[in-house]
């Protein structure tokens, strides 16, 4: 026993993978929700005018 952690790359990849996936999916969801809402609002405005 040296007190040093050996290996552990699977944990490193897991942390980076989860971070990329969560930030990427959340960013995409916000953009998709915004564009959907914007097109609905535009259609509503056009219907009103």
């Amino acid at each position, binding site marked *: 026993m040296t007190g040093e952690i050996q290996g552990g790359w699977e944990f490193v990849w897991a*942390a980076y993978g989860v971070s990329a996936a969560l930030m990427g999916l959340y960013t995409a969801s916000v953009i998709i929700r*915004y564009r959907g809402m914007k097109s609905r609002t535009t259609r*509503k405005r056009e219907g009103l005018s």
Partner: protein
Amino acid sequence: MRDNSNPVYTESSRPWTPYALIGIGTVLLLIGSYIGLFVAPAEHYMGDVQRIMYVHVPTAWNAMLVLSVAFIFAVLSLWRGDWKWDNRLESAIEVGVVLSFLLCVQGAIWAKPTWGVWWDWDPRLTTTAVMVFAFLGIMVLRNFVEEPGRRATWSAVATIIAFIDVPIVYFSVNWWNSLHQLQSSPETVSESFHLPLRINSFGILFLMTGVMMIRARLAALRLESELAPPLPADGKSLESGRVPGTGPAVGGNA
């Protein structure tokens, strides 16, 4: 009483700004992660597992920053009564919850090889979990309260109360015995680790600022549809799509 003199949603004069911020943030994160994974040296005791720090610590800094910004928006929402602060509050709370949740997941992945457990009810982890659930509760509250004025007031008050936990999370490692290490800062981290930490911190900051701007615009659009009166029977009585009682197109949402 909420001020309806400004329109709830106006087109930004720079609609591409948030997308540019997201692009810059993504590039910075790719560069910072490459340096953190392949260029920076392994830490003496933790070895390669320490490379998790380059995403975990920037996430923590940004989560705390965003929730502090949410607190400022909550105060401004109550003080100024302008809808734009409520839209920005909704955006900051959601981004703060996403970053805080990610922080807990990254921490659990780092804890397993270093502490031998995925989770421990230690002061830093417990106060962070309280923080996540407190702000998650505010998101749930916003979904349940249908009247926009009441929703804005209640969620602003709840945010101010929930924010009490944010400095407790930060100082928990100083105040109590904790498995978690002390706060990371340039003074406590070796110089060879600074570059990826800084690049990833700015990467998440740019990315999430862009996301917050778009999320605030989304909140403004939803609010506009909520505040609009129901369509008259002939569907032609309103002269424009603007909410009645609102003024000229000034101000912004993000």
